[in-house]
């Protein structure tokens, strides 16, 4: 179990500051839900954690050490939003998963590991030779999870992983996330614009608005007694929210 710590992290694109001095901790073995609207900087923060967005200031620490962003060993892994874009259409899903594995494994060890990971995400191990086109969106997203796990990560960043899925499939992926997190003791940064989804998965919640984390704390507390007006706005806007249910 590892701790991921953002300290005063800033990211700039050109002259615009997208993430502005964010400090956030993902405690060992916990899921932190990061909510916010599009453009709030939440995805950029996630990409910064895996080196896909350049830091302008601050630091990102894994158990006190800077997160390694070069070389083969990458203890922070990411699952992306669009399951149609996150798997190479020309590679079998087995090859995609194996690509993320540590280099020292030989061919047969890789095959065994691919099978184990596929079973872990409840896919038939025999489907390792399938191509992404043969899989549904939900199945692809589970392959993407397996790939992230193949790197034996200490922390997984999940960026809107259910927002491109149909509602009937979304539940499968969310259940799997909870199950994996519980069984493997993963630390996880779970990003979503959907408060109900975050509530279901995360034990801690951070709210981002215009590049800044405006509120964070235990999920139950933030969602039940929001301290910030912006958090209250967000909660009030959730459809079906008791705060504004108004049937004629």
């Amino acid at each position: 179990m590892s701790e991921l710590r953002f300290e005063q992290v800033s990211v700039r694109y050109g002259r615009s500051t997208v993430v502005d001095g964010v400090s956030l901790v993902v405690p060992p073995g916990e899921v932190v839900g990061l909510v916010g609207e599009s453009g709030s900087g939440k995805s950029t923060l996630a990409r910064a954690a895996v080196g896909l967005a350049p830091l302008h200031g601050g630091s990102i620490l894994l158990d006190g050490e800077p997160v390694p962003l070069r070389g083969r060993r990458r203890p922070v892994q990411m699952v992306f939003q669009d399951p149609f874009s996150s798997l190479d259409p020309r590679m079998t899903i087995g090859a995609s998963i194996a690509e993320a594995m540590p280099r020292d494994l030989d061919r047969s060890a890789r095959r065994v590991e691919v099978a184990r990971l596929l079973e872990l995400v409840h896919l038939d191990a025999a489907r390792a030779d399938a191509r992404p086109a043969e899989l549904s969106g939900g199945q692809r997203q589970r392959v993407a999870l397996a790939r992230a796990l193949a790197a034996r990560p200490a922390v997984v960043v999940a960026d809107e992983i259910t927002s491109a899925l149909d509602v009937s499939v979304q539940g499968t992926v969310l259940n799997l996330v909870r199950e994996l997190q519980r069984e493997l003791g993963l630390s996880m940064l779970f990003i979503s614009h959907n408060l109900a989804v975050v509530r279901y998965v995360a034990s801690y919640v951070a709210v981002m608005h215009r590049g800044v984390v405006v509120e964070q704390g235990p999920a139950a507390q933030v969602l039940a007694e929001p301290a910030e007006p912006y958090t209250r706005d967000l909660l009030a806007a959730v459809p079906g929210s008791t705060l504004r249910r108004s049937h004629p």
Partner: protein
Amino acid sequence: MATTASPGVAWPARTLDARPWLRFGLRRAGRLLVSLWVLLTASFLMTHLIPGDPVRGALGPTAPAELVAAKRTALGLDDPLPVQYLDHLRGVLTGDLGTSLISQVPVSDVIGQRLPATLWLAVLGFAVAVAVAVPVGVAAGVLTRRGHGRRTELAFTGTSVVLGTIPDFLVGVALVYVFGVRLGLLPVAGNDTLSSLVLPVLALAIGPAAILARVLRVEMVRVLQADYIRTARAKRLPARTVHLRHALPNALTAALTLCGLLLGALVAGTVLVENVFAWPGLGSTIVSSILTKDYPVVQGIVLVYGVGVLLVNTLVDVALALLDPRSMIRED
């Protein structure tokens, strides 16, 4: 992506987007200047990349060594390279492009004499191509929109690919044969009368017209499937209005970039067509100058063509920005 999709995305960039036209103008001017500099440098390097001594090449192996040496000194070829480079830049900026090695006429005079004929050809050719291609392409697009006219589409695409592939000089040769040799209807050489424009312009225009019409059709078909066309239909506007007011401007926007390329290619095409029709323009001059190794003339004409192409492209960008304001922002 610099769209102002939501307030959240827009806020950090708002100050930058405050004066898009100024930004656009500065960027465009900057790019034009850099391109001009590249062009000047390239034209300078051209004569220095040629293997062997250009003066010896031009005057021939029999020319006396003293003459070659004198010529080299006169041209400044014995100066250090940086000095030559600065002389070249200074010369171009003051309109001094050197003198022909063969005829001793200042290159700027040669260009001044020949440029108008080429300009006429290019401008008329382009105008004819656009005048034909726009209505044809748009009509074809409407006729072959999704779910319509598969046969029409096949015939149109086939014809336009064939016409667009035939090189202009082949068209030229065919025209010379039909109208000059067989029918004797139109003049096939020189530019003495207005009618002598007909065949060269035709030879130049057919290819670009076919390509432009074809691209316009594809654009129209694509645009007609756009969400905003559905919106226009939801407003229950008549088909004519939907096609002309909503689809056409967007299809043209996309085709405009191509127009720039086509106009550039058309300028280049004049080189071949002028040679077919013995048209006394820059194109026939540059070819004869290359063959006689009259490098100052070649250099000067290359510069003129290059500047022409750069100006065309800048004009297209400005037109694009006027038609579709998003294109200014998209560049960042």
